């Protein structure tokens, strides 16, 4: 594309034009998908609760998000007198950019990536980690008790779950030997999808990601029954819309990230990565896999109750972090062996990797199960004795 533009203008202008064009396309893609997710969520949750869901605007209510958008654009916007005006208005401006920026390194096919940074995965976590700032700013700037409590809760939760989320991908990085997103996808084509190699890390990642984007069962920061709407209680009109947008963008991105890192990204099983079919169908395959995870988040929302705050924190630090560390050391033992096998006999690489990793994960699962069982037994015995209250 850059070469095509370069016929009409100097090289730097061609590159810049391509950058802007691709960025806008990516932004529109993310926006359209985000709007579509809101519709999917209403429909699916509706069905789960034995309702029909949105069905007035357009066929199957498909234009409902558009109607919502028009409505939210024309709503009156209120800045509370008590709020710190500047910081209050800064909130929505800070919360959106990180949610958009992460899409820059997402690979849609072997030839379509914004940029394939060699620190791609770290870039994603670094940028996504700044989402906490917008929430703190919103919570503090509103000068509302619900907002501040909600913001503090949200940040404490996101911060606690960022650690297991990061640790769960260390194993993947170790097997792939790179932080580049394209590199990780290519490695999965060689060795098999990381969901097979790292099932426990995959589950930890999903749980942590769910907490990171404040989705049920980890939606304490927005627990309606206690703190109205958390950090965005005081926001109305499009300013609220920006928080809504950032939240659904994050859901979309985290699903796409899970699909890329654990489900082979854009690649189709048994079709080589460089293949024409894969290049053409890649983006659609990735979107399909992404919607698998989006459906899962909606399903969980329709099924699970909210967790309690002390359980939430204890789970991150006392369960997920130790499990991740155990996983990392297991991978550190096995990954070099796989790499040697791959170098000596490429055909054996995938079966050896999958079998050895599955066995290791099975052993790990048994250990985790036994430890949890013994803890539960001890706690039950204590409660029965009456020395500690039930929890």
């Amino acid at each position, binding site marked *: 594309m850059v070469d095509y533009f370069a016929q009409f203008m100097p090289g730097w202008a061609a590159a810049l034009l391509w950058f802007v064009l691709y*960025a806008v396309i990516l932004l529109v893609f993310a926006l359209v998908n985000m709007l579509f997710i809101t519709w999917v969520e209403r429909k699916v949750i509706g069905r789960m609760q034995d309702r029909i869901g949105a069905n007035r605007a357009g066929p199957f209510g498909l234009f409902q998000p558009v109607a919502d958008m028009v409505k939210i654009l024309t709503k009156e916007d209120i800045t509370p007198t008590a709020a710190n005006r500047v910081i209050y208005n800064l909130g929505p401006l800070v919360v959106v950019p990180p949610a958009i920026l992460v899409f820059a390194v997402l690979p849609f096919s072997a030839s379509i990536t914004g940029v394939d940074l060699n620190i791609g995965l770290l870039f994603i976590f670094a940028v996504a980690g700044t989402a906490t700032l917008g929430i703190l700013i919103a919570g503090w700037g509103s000068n509302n008790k619900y907002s501040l409590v909600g913001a503090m809760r949200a940040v404490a939760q996101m911060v606690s779950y960022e650690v297991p989320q990061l640790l769960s991908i260390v194993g993947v990085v170790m097997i792939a030997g790179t932080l580049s997103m394209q590199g990780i996808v290519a490695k999965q084509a060689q060795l098999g999808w990381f969901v097979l190699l790292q099932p426990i890390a995959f589950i930890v990642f999903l749980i942590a990601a769910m907490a990171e984007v404040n989705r049920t069962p980890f939606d304490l920061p927005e627990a309606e029954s206690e703190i109205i709407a958390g950090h965005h209680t005081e926001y109305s009109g499009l300013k609220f819309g920006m928080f809504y947008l950032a939240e659904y963008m994050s859901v979309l991105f985290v699903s796409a990230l899970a699909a890329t890192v654990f489900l082979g990204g854009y690649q189709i099983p048994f079709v080589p990565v460089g293949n024409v079919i894969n290049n053409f169908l890649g983006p659609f395959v990735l979107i399909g896999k992404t919607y698998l995870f989006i459906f899962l988040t909606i399903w969980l929302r329709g099924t699970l109750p909210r967790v309690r705050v002390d359980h939430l924190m204890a789970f991150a630090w006392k369960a997920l972090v130790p499990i991740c560390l155990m996983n990392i050391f297991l991978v550190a033992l096995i990954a070099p062996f796989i790499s040697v096998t791959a170098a000596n006999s490429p055909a054996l690489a995938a079966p050896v990797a999958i079998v050895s990793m599955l066995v290791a994960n099975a052993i790990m699962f048994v250990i985790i199960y036994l430890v949890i069982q013994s803890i539960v037994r001890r706690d039950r015995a204590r409660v029965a004795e009456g020395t500690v209250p039930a929890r």
Partner: protein
Amino acid sequence: MLAQWGFIGVFLLIALAFPVIGLATAWLLRPKKPGPIKKSTYECGLETVGETWIQFKVQYYIYALIFVIFDIEIAFLLPWAVSHTALVASGTGLNYLPLVEVVIFVAILLAGLVWAWRKGALEWV
């Protein structure tokens, strides 16, 4: 390589501009009829009592602190994770010395986590 980051820079500018443009459009379209009741702080219809910006629980701070420590640990672990497989598999046979070094690194920090756990610093009181 800087060209790659040029794209990130352009994308960052567009990502920053997007909410500004959106809010500016809304500012043009929306009605503006503020009133003292509308602009009062929302507290389920009651008057707010007391200050919002009060002193918070120390527990939040402790979690943030443990997070910082582990974040730095991960920043050190990632370069290891990238180079580990190649380091161990290089040369003849598998040389697990790097792994031992990292086990020591993590074990020291894990001791910190266990200590915090025992002290009850991870408890949400």
